[in-house]
């Protein structure tokens, strides 16, 4: 089955990005496809390559990037939400790219299920 995922909060303050990542990992482990993760609202902060968690904590920015690479998951950061919040190309971690809000509608159409994680 094909999944689309929407993430509405940045890492750390809320568990939303963690839950989305764990769900995506489990879906892939079961042989499903995660077509795209769409980062909206404060979710765009997931793409900040300067994020440096403590050494005994998880690093979601890196985990998302690795998942994108290994499993061809498209990581889209919404341009309008990102501009407001100061997430620009120069800040993007590997695996993420900035694109329009239309990518959310597109994945809503193309995926069998769209799951939203947020606050």
């Amino acid at each position, binding site marked *: 089955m094909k999944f689309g995922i929407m993430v509405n909060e940045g890492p750390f303050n809320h568990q939303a990005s963690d839950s989305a990542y764990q769900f995506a990992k489990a879906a892939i482990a079961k042989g499903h496809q995660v077509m795209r993760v769409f980062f909206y609202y404060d979710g765009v902060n997931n793409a900040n390559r300067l994020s440096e968690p403590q050494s005994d904590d998880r690093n979601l920015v890196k985990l998302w990037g690795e998942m994108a690479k290994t499993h061809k998951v498209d990581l889209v950061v919404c341009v309008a939400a990102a501009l407001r919040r100061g997430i620009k190309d120069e800040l993007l971690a590997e695996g993420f790219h900035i694109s329009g809000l239309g990518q959310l509608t*597109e994945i809503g159409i193309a995926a069998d299920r769209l799951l939203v994680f947020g606050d």
Partner: protein
Amino acid sequence: MSEEPVFDTQGVVRKFMFVNRKAPYGTIYALEILESVLISAAFEQDISVAFLDDGVFQIKKGHDPKDLGMKNFSPTYRALGGYDIEKLYVEKESMEARGLGPDDFVVKVQVVPAAELSKLMAEQDVLITG
């Protein structure tokens, strides 16, 4: 920058419902979900928007946040019709608990009881909560 895959969506029409449950201005959800409603119109899908819980305050008449320096996005709800987004639902229970009535809204909406909204939700292909 990674290459962007394009997924085949041609000729597919799905039922999308935006589920608006948050008050405006205290958080940005109302504004940014409205931006995504507008964009979705370009894809010729079957779009509806539900206002429930504090989401009913999003369409309260008379918003005026200029003293806070914030954008008044309220007129945009009236523009939705121009984008063929005409299925706007307000949950009756949420509206009444907040002391509001149909005349309080900036845009024409269908007021539906929870039981009916429940059925409408169950018919959707995609539910986007913001």
